[in-house]
């Protein structure tokens, strides 16, 4: 008896979405090949005690296309291991290699002390233009099939499809959606100290693969922000010698300057529906939060009117509030206002320095750059439900926190032995990763929404 409990068939719309993503990748590739050094290598620093043992058995390759060097199962295992919540079995220890549910001998896996098994096959799809991954997640103890799916794969899109399988397995076992089928943007700086500094804005898959340089410049680039559909990036560029806010379409490569006021044009944050950007402009003499229309149709609206620094806007999950950094009380702290700029409330009281707010879990978690003195700047989460503060990082110059779209991890920038590196820590502080590039400084990470 191996009939899947849940068989989600290939739908035409999914196929189209996959095809669209492929075109997107192609366009970006055509723009600028990424420098070899810009690829991130992800190391696990700390995992969870008692991580879930799971076996992702190498998938059968029944496709006419050449088999890639890194198999689907290997990608899934690496993803699950990186999450810190799973302890995937090494391939060489698998004494059995089932690829279909009836072939799974549960007793064997129980002896190997594995709780769950993932098996599957890669085949050519019926129309002959791409492939299909059919996979199953089985509970070794009950013998039940927890998940069965057939996933269409556009040519060249196998890695990303493996991330989608990882997401589904993660969700089935952890209870919240995975965040593997996502991308991260970051800035790589090379040539520091040579007088020919180069700033590159890079977009890569969340596991560090497929880095694409989106823009390269000799002037600073900072504050990349993903549009809610994961299709566009807003960022701050000093290409003209002054700060401007650029919106770049990753699909077409098209770049547009959306704000170039006198003074600072900084800290872009997309509204929920992707039509507006909250930004920080100092055209009035000091930085204030404004909301601008991305297409330039509506007139800019000024939300704060204060002589202090007001910057780093972050929208609440329902788009009704904006959190921001202000030093109106002398030191930077986090404030919240409604989307018209009224009802300003101070949110953080603990610590001398709270800046760069970012939210997750329906605004329950507020991650910030935190300091209780002047010298150690760390990533902390204010739990708005329990009103407790948890300092998550242990560096001296940690900054730029960015949540995974499922709220499980916070990605941030740190310095290690004089170099800029990225690090990630789980929201509970138990899992730690380090993300390094082979050359240069890496900074300003931004985790994308789930790429549909």
């Amino acid at each position, binding site marked *: 008896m191996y009939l899947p409990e849940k068989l989600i068939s290939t739908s035409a719309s999914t196929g189209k979405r996959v095809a669209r993503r492929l075109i997107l990748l192609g366009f970006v590739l055509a723009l600028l090949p990424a420098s070899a050094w810009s690829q991130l290598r992800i190391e696990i620093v700390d995992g969870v005690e008692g991580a879930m043992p799971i076996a992702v058995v190498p998938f059968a390759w029944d496709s006419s296309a050449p088999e890639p060097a890194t198999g689907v199962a290997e990608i899934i295992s690496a993803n699950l291991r990186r999450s810190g919540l799973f302890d995937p079995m090494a391939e060489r220890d698998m004494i059995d290699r089932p690829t279909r549910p009836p072939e799974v001998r549960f007793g064997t896996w129980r002896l190997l002390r594995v709780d769950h098994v993932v098996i599957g096959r890669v085949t050519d799809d019926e129309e002959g233009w791409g492939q299909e991954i059919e996979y199953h997640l089985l509970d070794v103890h009950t013998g039940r099939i927890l998940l069965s799916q057939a996933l269409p794969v556009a040519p060249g899109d196998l890695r990303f499809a493996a991330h989608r399988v990882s997401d589904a397995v993660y969700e089935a076992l952890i209870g919240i959606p995975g965040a593997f089928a996502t991308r991260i943007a970051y800035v790589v700086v090379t040539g520091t100290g040579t007088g020919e500094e180069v700033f590159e804005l890079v977009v890569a898959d969340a596991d560090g693969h497929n880095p694409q340089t989106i823009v390269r410049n000799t002037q600073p680039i900072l504050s990349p922000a993903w549009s809610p559909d994961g299709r566009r990036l807003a960022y701050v560029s000093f290409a003209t010698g002054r700060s401007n806010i650029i919106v770049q379409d990753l699909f077409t490569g098209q770049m547009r300057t959306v704000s170039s006021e006198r003074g600072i044009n900084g800290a872009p944050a997309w509204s929920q529906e992707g039509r507006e950007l909250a930004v920080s402009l100092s055209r009035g003499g000091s930085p204030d939060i404004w909301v601008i229309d991305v297409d330039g149709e509506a007139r800019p609206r000024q939300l704060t009117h204060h002589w202090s620094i007001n910057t780093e806007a972050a929208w609440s999950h329902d788009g009704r509030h904006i959190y921001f950094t202000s*030093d109106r009380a002398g030191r930077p702290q986090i404030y919240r206002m409604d989307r018209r700029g009224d009802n300003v409330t101070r949110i953080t009281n603990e610590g001398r320095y709270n800046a760069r707010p970012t939210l997750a879990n329906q605004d329950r978690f507020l991650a910030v750059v935190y300091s209780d003195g002047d010298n150690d700047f760390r990533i902390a989460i204010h739990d708005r439900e329990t009103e407790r503060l948890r300092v998550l990082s242990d560096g001296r110059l940690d*900054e730029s926190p960015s949540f995974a779209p499922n709220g499980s991890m916070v990605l941030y920038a740190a310095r290690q032995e004089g170099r800029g590196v990225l690090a990630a820590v789980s929201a509970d502080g138990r899992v730690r990763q380090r993300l390094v590039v082979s050359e240069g400084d890496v900074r300003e990470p931004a985790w994308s929404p789930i790429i549909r």
Partner: protein
Amino acid sequence: MKTVMRFAALVMMAALVAACAREVTPEPAPPEPTPPPAPERPVETDRLDPRDFTDARNLDNPDSLLSQRVIYFEFDRSNVRAQFRPIVDAHAAYLRANPTARVILEGHTDERGSREYNLGLGERRGTSVYEIMRASNVPSRQIEVVSYGEERPVCRESNEDCWQRNRRTEIVYTAR
């Protein structure tokens, strides 16, 4: 006597600032002002009064305050400290006397804290120099403030010595 003492104080100041500036790692090179057109005959520096802040030659004269173009700040502060005031005043005098001269006041911070907040802080440092110049009747069209925040450090180590040198406003001439 009073004048002599004031001059002595200025010379000491200049020496102090020069000592400070010498330690600055030259990379990446801050944008240098365009050099003045070559003089027809060699400059007679012995005839040049370093306190003549209307004379463009003093912009390159190490004995003149006009050759000093960096104002340093305390952590998380943006007020121009008294010892740097003469430098700002000298440039204000030059700008008043040379209406076609233009400067960009580049505000910078050290690396601590968040980048976007530091953009705001850098601008505040540029603006406090701007306000002193405006108060000495320099027309606003001659001055522009641009903040680079922590993006353009002159010193790259993570210690107070370096941070001190990075917390600065640079007076950059785009036209003399």
